[in-house]
């Protein structure tokens, strides 16, 4: 650019010099003899000068333009350069950030290793070679105080408090890279003293990429609760939400077969999964409306009704690269004949969202149970929504660092749950009533995961649960829960003969629970 300008200017100066010189020579040569010619020449020169002036102006203008353009391009260049450095800086920051994240993760991993791998299972692994024999599970001890403010259906009520302990050891055995056995025992000291129960025992056969066969006794894969949220260290609360507690809407477990699998349908993070299953089918405590659902039975007589079938689909719509967390949307159905030709049908939808310190989940379930002898359908609905927020990043001002370290481990929680049903079977309530020393009825009793409030048996039960978890490690937690029972009026109680009495006054109880839980 500069060279061009230089050439143009030099050229102009030269032509100007040549021109001036030429006119001078011409004027001398001609002398004053031919004034007319001179005048003519002078006129021509004036014209030429004017032209030159115009040219010069034009060139100046062009120069200015060129200058401007140059400046502009310099600016662009500067901007580009700036952009480059910013980009480089950004890259460096990203790298640093990545490094820091990795460091934080490693640190977190280091800090969060509370329990070394059990020596016993390591020894066993050596013995078994490449086979894995793994003992995990969970244990928890808790204290429950339930303030029973009123009677329910004339049952005795009394505020009570008690300690409980529960241990749920799990064995995983992996004889080959496509076979896994899982067995879970439930051993506890609860309201009826010590007891032991087999809660899960199944084989998991990884048939191919998209199909896993599960055979045995398993948590009901309906919705999210039984299968994924019920283990003690997994549940953010101590109690179950109402639709999964004493007045369950779908059976908690099943004995049968499942086929399940998952795949990515979009970019990384966008998954889809299915579970279909069949088993022994739903089982009720009595043939009256509102009777409690129980676990699966192996009694052949109970299976003459035919088997159950269930299906659950879940979709995860958020790509990982969006960094918007993980969202799961699910839909489930479970159906089977519960007695002779009478069907039990249920369906539900659920969601689960997790991002950074926030987690929220909820489910809605409806069930319909055809009743014998012209009794109207036993229709139930239940739901819960809950949310929790880790105070990981919250720094309270003006307090010592140590205090903030404690605060960072806290997770405040809130949950609202409810069940609607026309009737509740009194026999189920009586079964939940304890008998104290000296044979006196002590009212509904708390037990592991249940606060024992009579209000839980109201046909239209509602509960607000507030929680405060103190996390010591990812699976070691001290949980505190405050339950506020707010049942709605209405509904009936049904005796085993089918006689109905209105539910009447419903107590508004309060309960406090505190539990120390370890997941192995």
């Amino acid at each position, binding site marked *: 650019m500069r060279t061009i300008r230089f050439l143009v200017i030099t050229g102009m100066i030269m032509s100007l010099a040549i021109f001036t010189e030429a006119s001078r020579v011409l004027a001398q040569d001609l002398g004053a003899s031919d004034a007319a010619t001179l005048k003519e020449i002078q006129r021509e020169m004036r014209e030429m000068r004017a032209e030159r002036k115009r040219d010069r102006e034009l060139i100046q203008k062009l120069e200015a333009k060129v200058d401007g353009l140059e400046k502009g391009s310099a600016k662009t260049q500067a901007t580009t350069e700036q952009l480059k450095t910013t980009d480089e800086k950004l890259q460096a920051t990203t790298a640093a950030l990545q490094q820091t994240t*990795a460091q934080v*993760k*490693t640190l977190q*991993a*280091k800090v*969060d*290793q*509370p*329990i070394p*791998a059990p020596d016993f299972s*390591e020894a066993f*692994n050596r013995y078994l070679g490449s086979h*894995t024999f*793994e003992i*995990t599970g969970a244990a928890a001890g808790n204290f429950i105080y339930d303030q029973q403010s009123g009677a329910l259906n004339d049952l005795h009520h009394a505020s009570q408090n008690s300690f409980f302990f529960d241990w749920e050891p799990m064995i*995983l055995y*992996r004889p*080959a*890279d*496509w076979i*896994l056995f*899982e067995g879970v025992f439930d051993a506890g000291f609860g309201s009826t003293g010590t007891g032991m129960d087999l809660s899960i025992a199944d084989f*998991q*056969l*990884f*048939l*191919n*990429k*998209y199909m*896993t066969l*599960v055979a045995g006794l398993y948590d009901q894969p309906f919705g*999210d609760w039984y*299968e*994924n*949220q019920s*283990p003690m*260290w*997994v549940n953010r609360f101590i109690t179950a939400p109402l639709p999964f507690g004493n007045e369950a809407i779908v059976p908690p477990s099943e004995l049968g077969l499942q086929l*399940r*699998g*998952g*795949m*990515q349908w979009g970019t*990384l*993070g966008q*998954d889809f*999964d*299915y*579970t279909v299953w069949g088993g022994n089918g739903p089982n009720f405590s009595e043939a009256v409306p509102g009777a409690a659902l129980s676990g699966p039975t192996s009694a052949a007589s109970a299976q003459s009704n035919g088997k159950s079938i269930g299906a659950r689909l*879940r979709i995860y719509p958020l790509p*990982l690269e969006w960094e918007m967390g*993980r969202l*799961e949307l699910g839909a489930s159905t479970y159906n089977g004949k519960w007695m002779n030709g009478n069907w039990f049908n249920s369906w539900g939808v659920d969601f*689960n969202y*997790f991002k950074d310190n926030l*987690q929220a989940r909820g489910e809605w379930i409806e069930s319909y149970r055809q009743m014998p002898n012209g009794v109207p359908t036993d229709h139930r609905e239940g739901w819960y929504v809950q949310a929790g927020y880790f105070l990981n990043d919250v720094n309270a001002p003006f307090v010592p660092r140590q205090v903030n370290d404690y605060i960072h481990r806290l997770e405040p929680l809130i949950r609202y749950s409810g069940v609607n049903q026309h009737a509740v079977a009194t026999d189920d309530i009586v079964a939940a009533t304890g008998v104290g020393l000296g044979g006196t009825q002590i009212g509904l009793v708390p037990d592991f995961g249940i606060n024992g409030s009579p209000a839980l048996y109201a046909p239209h039960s509602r509960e607000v649960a507030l929680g405060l978890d103190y*996390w010591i490690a*990812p*699976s070691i937690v001290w949980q505190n829960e405050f339950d506020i029972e707010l049942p709605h009026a209405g509904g009936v109680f049904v005796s085993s003969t089918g006689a109905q009495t209105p539910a009447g006054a419903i107590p508004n109880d309060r309960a406090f629970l505190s539990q120390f839980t370890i*997941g192995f």
Partner: protein
Amino acid sequence: MKKQVAAFLLMTATLGSVGGLARADQQMTPAEHRRLFLKGAELWPVYCNQCHNARPPSEKAPVEWNAIIMHMRTLGNIPPDDAQALLEYLKSGH
């Protein structure tokens, strides 16, 4: 007898085609291991936090993760490629 042999062969072939996670392990180059590890590290905080707090790699021995990742793959119906990446990440932390 021939039928029995044929049946045996067929069975072996069927079982041989089942999708384990560890099988691919043996034929992987270091670069592939690295790629899987990075993918696993990316997935871990998101996938493993979905149902419960993410359990860090250091909590369990590699041989234990073999069994646990199968258990989690069942519960979460985690796509097998992702499960393998997660396993690679988890096993490297001990």
